[in-house]
């Protein structure tokens, strides 16, 4: 068997078959049950919550990611090596552990939890906790995409801009940012995909209350456990569609990148 045939077979067995099965089961009885399942208020709320978390976590991690990458590459400050290593922690750490750590910090008997609760600020079982968990697990992607590109372009163009009279901000806007824009875009796509799909860490800190703190991934699990298989499959299809959309976006961008 050739290498290509083997990789295709592997992809079909591991990726394509399960995802296709989800689509097939969701539309097994036609489109009507599918629409009914995803337009029920709990499902709509879960979708909205997932998007609300994603739309805040992605910009946060994009700004942080770009600044962090510049700090790692451009500034020879002691401690930057540690930061570089720490950025990868969310990739290595199981999301469940992240959730548990947040629970220990912000829970009623946690380090910050007592004080925050006394001042009426709810972190756990509420939007802030879910945002924290999602931001944590999706943190490395922009940094990891931007760091190698910054290394590759070097500092000469920035120095040239400085000798031509450009301020640090102008240099960043007109020279550095255009040079890393595709790396940032890939990072944003990966971060978005990760945020949409997040389950483990959020599951621990959200409590998964239907119609209140339930994200789309949690809705899938809850529906499945309640023998609402159509609901579970329909929501899964929605998640898969969002993921495929982001991947398509990335492919289109890669094409744009190559032509520039």
């Amino acid at each position, binding site marked *: 068997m050739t290498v290509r045939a083997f990789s295709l077979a592997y992809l079909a067995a591991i990726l394509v078959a399960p995802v296709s099965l989800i689509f097939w089961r969701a539309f097994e009885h036609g489109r009507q049950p599918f629409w009914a399942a995803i337009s029920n208020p709990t499902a709509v709320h879960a979708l909205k919550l997932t998007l609300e978390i994603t739309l805040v976590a992605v910009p946060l991690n994009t700004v942080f990611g770009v600044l962090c990458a510049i700090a790692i590459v451009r500034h020879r400050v002691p401690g930057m090596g540690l930061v570089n290593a720490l950025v990868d922690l969310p990739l290595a750490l199981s999301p469940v552990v992240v959730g548990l750590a947040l629970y220990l910090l912000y829970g009623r008997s946690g380090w910050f939890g007592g004080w925050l609760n006394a001042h009426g600020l709810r972190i756990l079982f509420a939007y802030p906790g879910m945002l924290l968990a999602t931001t944590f697990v999706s943190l490395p992607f922009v940094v990891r995409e931007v760091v190698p590109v910054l290394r590759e*372009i070097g500092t*000469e*163009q920035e*120095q*040239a*801009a*400085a*000798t*031509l*009279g*450009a*301020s640090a901000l*102008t240099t960043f806007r*007109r*020279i550095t940012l*255009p*040079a890393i824009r595709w790396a940032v875009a890939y990072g944003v796509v990966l971060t978005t995909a990760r945020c949409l799909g997040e389950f483990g860490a959020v599951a621990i800190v959200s409590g998964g209350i239907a119609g209140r703190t339930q994200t789309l991934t949690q809705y899938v699990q809850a529906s499945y456990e309640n023998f609402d298989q159509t609901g579970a499959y329909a929501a899964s299809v929605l998640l898969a569609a969002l993921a495929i959309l982001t991947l398509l976006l990335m492919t289109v961008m890669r094409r744009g990148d190559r032509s*520039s």
Partner: protein
Amino acid sequence: MAIEARSVSKKFGDFAALEDVSVDVASGSLTALLGPSGSGKSTLLRVIAGLEVPDSGDVFISGREATALAPQKRGVGFVFQHYAPFTHMTVWENVAFGLKIRKRPKDAVRARVDELLELVQLAGLGKRYPSQLSGGQRQRMALARALAPEPEVLLLDEPFGALDARVRIELREWLRRLHDEMHVTTIFVTHDQEEALELADSVVVMNKGRVEQVAGPRQLYDEPANEFVMSFVGPVNRLDDGWVRPHDIELRHEANGSTREAQVLRVVRLGFETRIELERDDGERLHAQLTRDEADELELRDGDIVYVRTRKSRRF
């Protein structure tokens, strides 16, 4: 003086790139910083541009103290060794950059950029990207970009280093003509003594972070201050505690009182010049430089015995 560096020192870790360097550059002159790699010449250029901060010493540009001034505020144009083109901008946008960020009116920007592209012989290539240019074209684009904001001083780091030999010589002559037209005070860094002697009004010879000599090309060649300058500026033979230029060695077929016997090891014909590699009777190796006519007249062949006399030798 357009540029003055006073007692400038700069260390990178344990490596002393510049040690107590003082240089004066006259207004409107074309000055070469000449030296081997690691001599500190590029570091000195970067200190003048404000891209490196010296550990001690002062820099003055047009009489103004500039030591602590940011590169943006020095009125200096800098051409990098590898040109540092803005890769995502066209040639036109590259040249316009320094003018646009100064918020010059659009018409003035267009007129100035077109004029500069004409000057550097890139008119018609404005819409190309730097990756679509040859090395020589990229170099001229970088020069136009540096000249656009009308700097008081133009600094060039190994401007011809990355080009092939023929383009290098063409650009050299072109840069000299350009300088004669524009009179911008210019400093360029080079490790090529021929380039320095051909182009510059004044040459600063550097070695191991120090200035060895500052002189015009002719004085540098004829009156080198020390052994380093003698051996770095032009080819040289070390003979009997003295230094002899190969063209100051005379060859003849008959001995007289002041000649030494030597054997021809190899005759190398380089167009107009012929180089003769010799071994003297005491085993000392040397080479002589003759014109083609002189060499033809002597009819030298490998293995011949000749008699050698030195016309002019220097001791330090």
